[in-house]
């Protein structure tokens, strides 16, 4: 049974047809990347998965259960978590409070959850009393990831984790993503940076103007001439 399944989903913003018959599936423990240029529907896919927008037709399933009509909080409770685009931390709250908010549905997080996050990001323990808005971009990315992991997700959704980071930090960031993945969490990475994401992913999907144009093993996609032309620029 797939961990997450989008089945023939059509999502609209008013009259505008964004996602057109999109079907993707993620198995437990997989690392999948969703690629696409600007306005290809990547973020809308994430919003549809989380229930921030509802599809007009089609179904969203978590572990076989139809959650299409369920609110976001229910889906988070079923094991989804997100690292939003631009991180979107709660700026005037401390790092610790931000982490607690990640575990809101679980009552604020148990000691083991904090320990797990601090082990991945020792720096967050050091800075737990600092206001999140005063951290650097790289540190904020860590808080955002830590906050998402606090809910013990089965599937971690990551929206453009490389955005606004220096190339060296992008690489380190993906090292952490791999590390989290190895601890058994399935991950869906939504990215424009096809090279880095395909290097760590098991499988990949490629979107273009709301339609799925390519899918397959990451290794195959890396060799694919069409993808190279469209997204790798050579």
């Amino acid at each position, binding site marked *: 049974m797939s961990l997450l399944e989008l089945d023939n989903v059509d999502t609209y913003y008013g009259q505008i047809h964004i996602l057109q018959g999109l079907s993707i599936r993620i198995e437990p423990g997989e690392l999948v990347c969703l690629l696409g240029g600007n306005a290809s529907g990547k973020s809308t896919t994430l919003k549809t998965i989380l229930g921030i927008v509802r599809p007009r037709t089609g179904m969203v399933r978590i572990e076989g259960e139809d959650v299409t009509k369920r609110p976001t909080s229910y889906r988070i409770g079923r094991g989804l978590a997100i690292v939003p685009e631009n*991180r*979107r931390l709660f700026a*005037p*709250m401390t790092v*610790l409070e931000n982490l607690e*908010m990640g575990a809101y549905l679980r009552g604020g997080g148990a000691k083991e959850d904090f320990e797990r996050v*601090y082990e991945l990001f020792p*720096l967050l*323990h050091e800075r737990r009393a600092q206001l999140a808005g005063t951290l650097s971009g*790289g540190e904020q990315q860590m808080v955002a990831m830590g906050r998402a992991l606090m809910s013990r997700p089965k599937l971690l959704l990551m929206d453009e984790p490389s955005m606004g980071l220096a190339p060296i930090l992008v690489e380190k960031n993906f090292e952490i993503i791999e590390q989290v993945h190895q601890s058994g969490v399935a991950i869906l990475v939504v990215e424009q940076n096809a090279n880095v994401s395909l290097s760590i992913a098991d499988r990949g999907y490629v979107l273009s103007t709301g339609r799925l144009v390519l899918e397959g093993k990451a290794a195959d996609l890396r060799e694919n001439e069409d993808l190279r032309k469209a997204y790798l620029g050579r």
Partner: protein
Amino acid sequence: MTDSTPHSSSIPASGPAVGQDEWVARHAARRLMPVGPLRTVEERLRIVPWWAWLVLFIAAMSLLPVVESSGYVRRVGFDTVLYMLLALGLNVVVGWGGLLDLGYVAFYGVGAYAYALLDSDKFGVHLPTLVAVPVVVVIGAVVGFLLGLPSRRLTGDYLAIVTLFFLQLFQTVMTNGDSAFGHNLTGGPNGILRIDPLHLFGHDLTVQHQGVFAVSYFYVALGFFAVVFVALRFVNSSRTGRAWRSLREDPLAAEAMGMPVNWLKLMSFSFGAAVAALTGTLFAALNASVFPLTFYFVLLITVYTMVILGGSGSQPGVVAGALIISPLLEMLRDPGKSRIIFFAVLIGGVGLAARRSRTLGVAAAATIAFGFAVHELARAIDASWVSGEKAGGFAGAVDHWVVHPAQLASWIPPVSYIGLIAATLLVTTLHGRLRLVALVPTLYLSAFVWENVMLAKPEPARYIVLGLILIALMILRPNGLLGERRVEIV
């Protein structure tokens, strides 16, 4: 907030970990703290726990009737405690929930009217105080919840308009409630009279004791304040309180973390409304009468001013706001005191706005000299122009400087008032030396307008002075006196 020191064992002692910024690693000791002696003071004060501050504060407040026997001052003290309660309630909605609720004082009215209907001769219902007050609080919370239902999906301006409409609706219903379906429910514009006093420990609390305002209500209000303050503090430090703040910062991110955003908004409305309703019972019981127009814009603006000036989001902040504004508004009723406050604000404002002390000195000296020159010139031309002078004291000193005719020609007030606005706008557009040159006559003109126009009309004047204070403070401390430091992610 729980501290998590036990985790330190799991931290490797070796240097920067994966993903750490190098620049940040070199500035590990970065802190959000002032430096120098201020820092020492702040660190010392941090050791004092919050409840010790509260006990100290309550103790200091309860001394008021002991040191002050004037009924008027005691009454102002009681009103101040009511304002403190109202500000605490509004802080839940505006400061924590981030919801711009312009109908807030309607809940105060709901509380007062509910108490009036449950404890007066109006319908002959006389519930015991210990039953009536909790019932009124629940009614307030329910009404807040009901108002929240249609508005929970609105944000910002739209929410403000809907809640403002609710305030208007409350007014209309209360004013026309004397002929609702053929029954007189609310007494209409005449309100409800002969409301029961609070009845506690087997006694009716009397408002007057031997002709002086009795202190029992003051202490009851102070008790309510302590309970509400502590209760709200616990709510704020709970999961719900943190969820409110994250909701205020970023509703979408809060929703993506799985928080029930709409439910949290309703909770925030309910809590604020319940506190306002509780305050309403005190108001109704003390005055023994309620009228619709009490719960209207002037009160709304006053409470908002307290919250903004004190620091929206900070409990001690909004209490400080109420503690400053409420007595200030009373003092501004007295021309002698309001004159001193006006000039203090004027001098303080210019002093704080001046970036260099030399500029300030030049401006002050030039304004004083300019004033005396104009005054002497006016006297030389026509002695009646300075005939309104008072003798002695601060007022006399000011009148030797400001032109003050006994009889004001009818065209002078509007012309000088509009001239002052134009001059102020001109000053803000100029720079450097020109600004200094324009500032001197503008300051003199404002003193002239104050002495000749404003003081003759103390009621609007006191709100204008309040506005001036608010403007000056917002420039200096945009977060209010004790507000949370705003941190923006750019």
